[in-house]
C-alpha cells in the first residue's frame, strides 16, 4: 500500500504571526483511517487546511498524491481538490441552493452530465436520511441536517481522501454511528479518511484507525504508526 500524504518538517504561519504548526512530519497510507485529536486551538484545522489545499505551508514539504503540493501551480489545484472531499466544521453549504443542489455541486463542478447526477445524489441523500428534504434550503434545516448535507456533498464524488472536521458534532449518537458507517464503507472502497474529532466514542468505534494528536502546533503520535517511513521506530 503506498502513501497518499507525506508531511516533512511542515510549518505554517498566518501573516507575520507565530507559527501555528511547527515541524510537523507524518505519512498517511492510501486507504488508511485516521483520527486527528487535540485541544481547541492546537492546530487541527490548520493541519486539515494544508491537507485540503486551502493553505500552502510556509516551510517544509507537503506531498499529496506523490506531488509537492506547496509547489503546485494554481492551474493544477482544481484537479487535486476534486480528489479530496471536505466536511467543514461550519458546513459551508450554499444557502441559496437546495439540499439536492448542494450535494450535486461537486459532480457539476467536475462536469458530470446532468442525466448522471440525479441517481447518486438521491442515493446519497437517502444515506444521510434526508430524502424528504431534497428541495429544502440550508437555512430551513437543523444543524444536524446541515451537517449531513455537508457530509453527503463531501463524499458524493468518491474522493480519494476525505477530510472531515468534527463531522458528527451536531448529530445524535444514532446518526453519528450511521455517518461513521458511511465513512467505513468509503474507506473499504479505498478512500483515505482523516477525521478531526473530540468524540471518544467515535474514535473507539474504529479500533483499526490511527490516532494523531496535535498539541500546541506540533504533532504527537500516540499510536506510533505515523512516523516516516511508516512503521519505523
Amino acid at each position, binding site marked *: 500500500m503506498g502513501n497518499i500524504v507525506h508531511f516533512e518538517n511542515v510549518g505554517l504561519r498566518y501573516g507575520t504571526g507565530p507559527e501555528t504548526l511547527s515541524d510537523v512530519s507524518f505519512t498517511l497510507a492510501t486507504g488508511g483511517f485516521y483520527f486527528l485529536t487535540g485541544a481547541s486551538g492546537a492546530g487541527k484545522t490548520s493541519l486539515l487546511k494544508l491537507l485540503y*489545499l486551502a493553505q500552502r505551508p510556509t516551510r517544509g514539504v507537503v506531498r499529496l498524491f506523490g506531488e509537492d503540493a506547496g509547489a503546485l501551480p*494554481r492551474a493544477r489545484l*482544481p484537479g487535486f481538490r*476534486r480528489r479530496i472531499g471536505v466536511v467543514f466544521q461550519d458546513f*459551508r453549504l450554499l444557502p441559496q441552493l437546495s439540499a439536492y443542489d448542494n450535494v*450535486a455541486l*461537486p459532480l457539476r463542478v*467536475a462536469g458530470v452530465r446532468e442525466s448522471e447526477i*440525479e441517481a447518486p445524489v438521491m442515493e446519497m441523500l437517502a444515506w444521510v436520511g434526508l430524502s424528504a428534504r431534497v428541495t429544502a434550503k440550508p437555512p430551513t434545516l437543523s444543524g444536524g441536517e446541515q451537517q449531513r448535507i455537508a457530509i453527503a456533498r463531501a463524499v458524493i464524488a468518491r474522493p480519494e481522501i476525505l477530510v472531515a472536521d468534527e463531522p458528527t458534532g451536531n448529530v445524535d449518537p444514532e446518526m453519528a454511528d450511521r455517518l461513521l458507517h458511511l465513512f467505513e464503507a468509503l474507506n473499504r472502497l479505498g478512500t483515505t479518511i482523516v477525521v478531526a474529532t473530540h468524540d471518544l466514542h467515535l474514535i473507539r468505534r474504529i479500533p483499526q484507525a490511527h490516532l494523531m494528536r496535535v498539541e500546541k502546533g506540533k504533532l504527537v503520535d500516540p499510536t506510533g504508526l505515523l512516523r516516516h517511513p511508516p512503521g519505523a521506530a
Partner: protein
Amino acid sequence: MTSLRRSGAIDLKLLGQGQRSWVMAGIMAIMLFLTVLSGALGLGVARSAGGLDRQLAGQLTVQLVEPDAALRDSRAKALVVGIARVPGVARVREADRARLAALLQPWLGDAGLDPDLPMPVLIDVTAAPNAAAAVAAAARRIAPGVRVDSSARWLSPVRGLLATLFWVAIGLVVVIAAATAGVALLVARAGLDTHRDTIDVLHMLGSTDLQVARLLQRRIARDTLLGGAIGTLAALALVALFQTKLALTGSEVLGGATLAPIDWTLLLLLPIGFALLATVATRMTVLRTLGLKL
C-alpha cells in the same frame, strides 16, 4: 426536478438574484441609449456627407464678367458650346439672368434690373469629377478672364463640419464603450466580493477560475443584454422620430441624413457588441483577481 437538471439554472441560483442585477441592467440601458443616439448621429452624418459629395462632385460654376454686353453675350454662347464639347461634360446651362437679377434686387434695388449694369454671366456645368481641369482650360481658352469655381470648394466648410460631427459621434461611442467595460469591471469586482463565500466553496470543491469567471460573465452579459435592449429600443424610437422630422424639413443636406437599413441593423447589433465587451472585461477581471489568491 427538471429545473435542477439545467446547469444554467444552477448558475443563476449560485449567484442569487440581487438588487445589483437591476442596477447593472439600468446602467446598461442608459449606456446603450446614449451609444445608439451617438451611433445614429455618426451614421446619419456620414450618409449626409456622402450624399453631399455625390451631389457636388463635378458641379462647376463658370463666371464671366464682361462690361460689354454684346461681347458678354457672344462669349457666353461660345462658352456654353465650347464647354459642352469637353469629354466628360454631362450638362451645360447658363443661369437665367432674370432670376439672377431678381436674386440681387433686395441688395441692389431696381438698379439690378438696369441693362447698363454689367451683370456677370453664370454657367452651371455638370461634369465627371476628373473633367473639371479640362472644363476650366476650355473656358479660359474661350474667355481668358473667366473664373471657374468648384461647388465642392465653397461648400467645403459644411463638409468639414459634417466630418467633425462624424468623428465626435464615433468618439462618443468609443468613450461609452470604454465606460461600459469599466462598469463591467467594477461590477465583476463587487460580484467577487459579494459572492466570496460561494466562490471559496466552489474552489474547495475543485472549481477552476474559468468556471467561476463564467458564472459572473453570464450574469453580466445577461444584464447588459437586457438593459441594452431596452436602451437601444428607446433610442431607436427617438431616432425614428428625428428621421420623420428631418424628412419634413425638405432640406437636401438634412434629408440626406436618413439612415439606411444597414445602419438600423448596425445600431440593433450594438447591445450584442456591448454584451460581448462586458463579458470579456468581466472574464479578464475575474481571472486576474482570482489569480492572486491560492
